[in-house]
């Protein structure tokens, strides 16, 4: 079962050929000798006997060992020697039928095993030119898939990309190239690499995303350098009060926007670090922008900023509160950041759906909202029930009592 060391050396050394291509200008005859030798040695290792598990079976189901027909490779070398050299001008235009289709003779399991063991491919890689190998594989889907897998496994990225380029599998080419960026740690090098990805044949949507990826990293590098400088200078209040916990490099877009709304909120559109600039450059929709800005300003407890986010002046000069996201979301985010009840209350009041409003008001103890809503609904029962939830002797309790005893309200229950 085990080959001795000597046999191995011999085997591996004997299959070394210098690479040649069929396009060589050299003497045709000597080329022929080379290919004959190449093909004959192919047969050598195919008939290799020392692999116990090699199930050599052709597609017809007969074991190859039964020798009912000559080994495929032998026929090729026979064919080559029988016909005059001239008609074998080794051009690429040769009908493919005259090459035996080796991979079709092998069952998928055989092909997998042989290719996985690398025998055929190592050999072919060394002897055939890339173009011929690719061309032959183009019509042999099974072998082609195996080659791709093989190249991925041994990490031969260059040959893999050449193969994709040849096959016009452009999108796969683009993605395979882009994938490499995961292995580049240095931000500047990664940025340069991403630049090479822009313009590759991705789908239309993906192209835009790749462009954004590059632009984002480019900006992040600038912001990071600048902010690190500011932080160490120690003059900027926001960095003193809230020292940065991590670098902004390679963070997703939304995280970057949050960072920008946190540390650079008031900056004008002209700077790379301003939120408005980010919004414009990456076409961030209003919804996403408002959500992120809200989260950042709420974290800083900057309630005026929060207010400004939702206040719009209409043409009459009146202010009105609007939100591209439901106000219930606003309330949740405010609560998560421990906003004071008065602030919470204001936004709970803006929730349109009555049930949601009541739910949130009760959950967050915005008593006034609850009381007012039950009053508007003329629901005496609920109001009475809620009375037990407020503190004894509190202003809210008084308010409830006042309402319950009011003769002006036409309670429905």
């Amino acid at each position: 079962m085990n080959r001795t060391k000597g046999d191995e050396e011999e085997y591996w050394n004997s299959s070394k050929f210098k690479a040649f291509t069929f396009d060589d200008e050299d003497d045709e005859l000597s080329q022929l000798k080379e290919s004959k030798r190449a093909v004959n040695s192919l047969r050598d290792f195919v008939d290799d006997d020392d692999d116990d598990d090699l199930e050599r079976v052709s597609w017809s189901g007969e074991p190859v060992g039964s020798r009912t027909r000559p080994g495929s490779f032998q026929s090729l070398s026979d064919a080559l020697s029988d016909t005059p050299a001239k008609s074998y001008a080794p051009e690429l235009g040769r009908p493919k039928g005259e090459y035996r289709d080796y991979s079709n003779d092998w069952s998928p399991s055989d092909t997998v095993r042989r290719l996985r063991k690398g025998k055929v491919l190592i050999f072919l890689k060394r002897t055939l030119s890339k173009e011929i190998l690719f061309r032959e594989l183009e019509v042999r889907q099974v072998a082609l898939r195996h080659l791709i897998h093989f190249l991925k496994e041994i990490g031969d990225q260059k040959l893999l990309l050449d193969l994709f380029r040849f096959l016009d599998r452009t999108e796969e080419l683009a993605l395979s190239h882009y994938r490499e960026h995961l292995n580049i740690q240095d931000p500047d090098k990664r940025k340069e690499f991403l630049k090479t990805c822009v313009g590759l044949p991705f789908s239309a949507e993906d192209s835009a995303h790749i462009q954004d990826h590059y632009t984002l990293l480019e900006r992040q590098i600038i912001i990071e350098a600048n902010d690190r400088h500011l932080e160490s200078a120690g003059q900027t209040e926001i960095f003193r009060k809230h020292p940065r916990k991590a670098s902004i490099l390679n963070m997703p877009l939304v995280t970057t926007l949050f960072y920008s709304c946190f540390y650079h909120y008031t900056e004008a559109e002209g700077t790379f670090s301003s939120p408005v600039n980010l919004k414009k450059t990456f076409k961030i929709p209003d919804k996403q922008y408002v959500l992120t800005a809200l989260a950042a300003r709420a974290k800083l407890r900057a309630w005026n900023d929060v207010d400004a986010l939702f206040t719009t002046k209409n043409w009459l000069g009146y202010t009105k509160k609007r939100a591209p996201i439901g106000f219930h979301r606003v309330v949740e985010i405010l609560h998560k950041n421990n906003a004071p009840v008065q602030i919470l209350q204001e936004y709970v009041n803006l929730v349109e759906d009555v049930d949601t409003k009541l739910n949130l008001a009760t959950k967050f103890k915005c008593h006034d909202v609850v009381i007012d809503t039950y009053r508007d609904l003329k629901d005496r029962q609920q109001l009475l029930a809620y009375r037990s939830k407020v503190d004894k002797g509190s202003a809210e309790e008084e308010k409830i009592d006042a309402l319950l005893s009011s003769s002006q309200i036409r309670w429905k229950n």
Partner: protein
Amino acid sequence: MAAHLSYGRVNLNVLREAVRRELREFLDKCAGSKAIVWDEYLTGPFGLIAQYSLLKEHEVEKMFTLKGNRLPAADVKNIIFFVRPRLELMDIIAENVLSEDRRGPTRDFHILFVPRRSLLCEQRLKDLGVLGSFIHREEYSLDLIPFDGDLLSMESEGAFKECYLEGDQTSLYHAAKGLMTLQALYGTIPQIFGKGECARQVANMMIRMKREFTGSQNSIFPVFDNLLLLDRNVDLLTPLATQLTYEGLIDEIYGIQNSYVKLPPEKFAPKKQGDGGKDLPTEAKKLQLNSAEELYAEIRDKNFNAVGSVLSKKAKIISAAFEERHNAKTVGEIKQFVSQLPHMQAARGSLANHTSIAELIKDVTTSEDFFDKLTVEQEFMSGIDTDKVNNYIEDCIAQKHSLIKVLRLVCLQSVCNSGLKQKVLDYYKREILQTYGYEHILTLHNLEKAGLLKPQTGGRNNYPTIRKTLRLWMDDVNEQGFCSLIISQNPTDISYVYSGYAPLSVRLAQLLSRPGWRSIEEVLRILPGPHFEERQPLPTGLQKKRQPGENRVTLIFFLGGVTFAEIAALRFLSQLEDGGTEYVIATTKLMNGTSWIEALMEKPF
């Protein structure tokens, strides 16, 4: 011996013993004291085959994990590397061999490739100059590993990606090899059914491999009546939904690896009297989960809703049993009570563990978010609103919930809609890339290739037809999103495992058994891949004659992974009074939606 493997209809201990024997033979080949250097990935699956005690019997004195630099000192004659055939591992082995201390006593090196040798790897060893240092270089064909009395797995993580995204059939070859091993031990399987491209390939390989075995006739009386090969991509839906059986939930929340689960230790700290809980354990609690544990076997496949009542009934029985000591008056009675103590104590320990686990699970299932997620899943599976952007999913992205959670939901929507409208798909993609990072373009591309998240082509949604024809949605859902108590305690249909959704894969198996696939020809044609039937001739005398009332035994092989919920559904069918078929389940990998999608994510090398 792993007794629980013998309890099923098919004694899987036979397989386990055969596999152990091969291991013993190899160990004995490397005569003398030995140390094994393990590829960490293999230790889990191997643990199901052999414990350290077996290795010790064959002079294994030390075990190390494979890592770089020099091997630890050990006074042994042999060093054996147990590894998968992967190039990066060869580099580490070479490092070990080359940095061997020449001054110490010489140690012989050997390699055992699991499950196959690879010339590529051996070439690498040669390039690094160490190939000749190994005396025995062999392969150990560990394909199908028995996990329980009715369950086998190859534990091949990469199988789905290789088969369905890369067209690499290596795992299929191993599957076929595993099936040949099974047939050598349990007899030729007379009938093979299949659905899917990969199923077809495996069947072809099996038939060809059988023909190569001309000469020795298989004289074993066949145990299996049928083999059913199913491609995972025939049913992409099931693994995406959250499993609702007890075992399924344990796997979803904590992850079960090679029959073990690691749990947060706090609930398992032994209560010491007057200790005040000072010494809380910090290491995770590791528990083994298989049918050897009586209580676990009873509750593992139940809908979680039914587990509570079983546990409380058990608690009463065990309490009563312990109370019996008051009734033991005579010496004989006391002796009998004492002899049963170990069993009772084990039962009590088991009950305590599972009560804690059930509490942990309940914390999750009663949370608002779990309910919201389940509601959305059930909406999609019943066909509601699958064609627009979903609010809950949007919220999850906005709140940056786990990416895999989001991907599962988005893929579920896509599968239930036969692909998403381009606008909806682009919207989700953009939100995901902007929130989690652009590098996930690669993952999204993989998901599209797998058919999980893709644009709708042809404008036709086939899912409602499939759902209605195969009766996949049975609407038994109660307010908590689970089955009603009655249904969960006494299910009448396999849909209980997902509280209303019958796994498509299992439904296909069920219909094959009765009344046969001819009744669903049209639906089968909508599902991807060919469906076929093959017969393998048996020598006369070995024809199986079934007794009246005796069930058929079907081996069902999931090519690409299977979930615990599907296993539970098949076990449900097996124990039906008039079911007619008992199932043994095999797969390339035990998985859930999370591990499945994780395997499709692109990571740095």
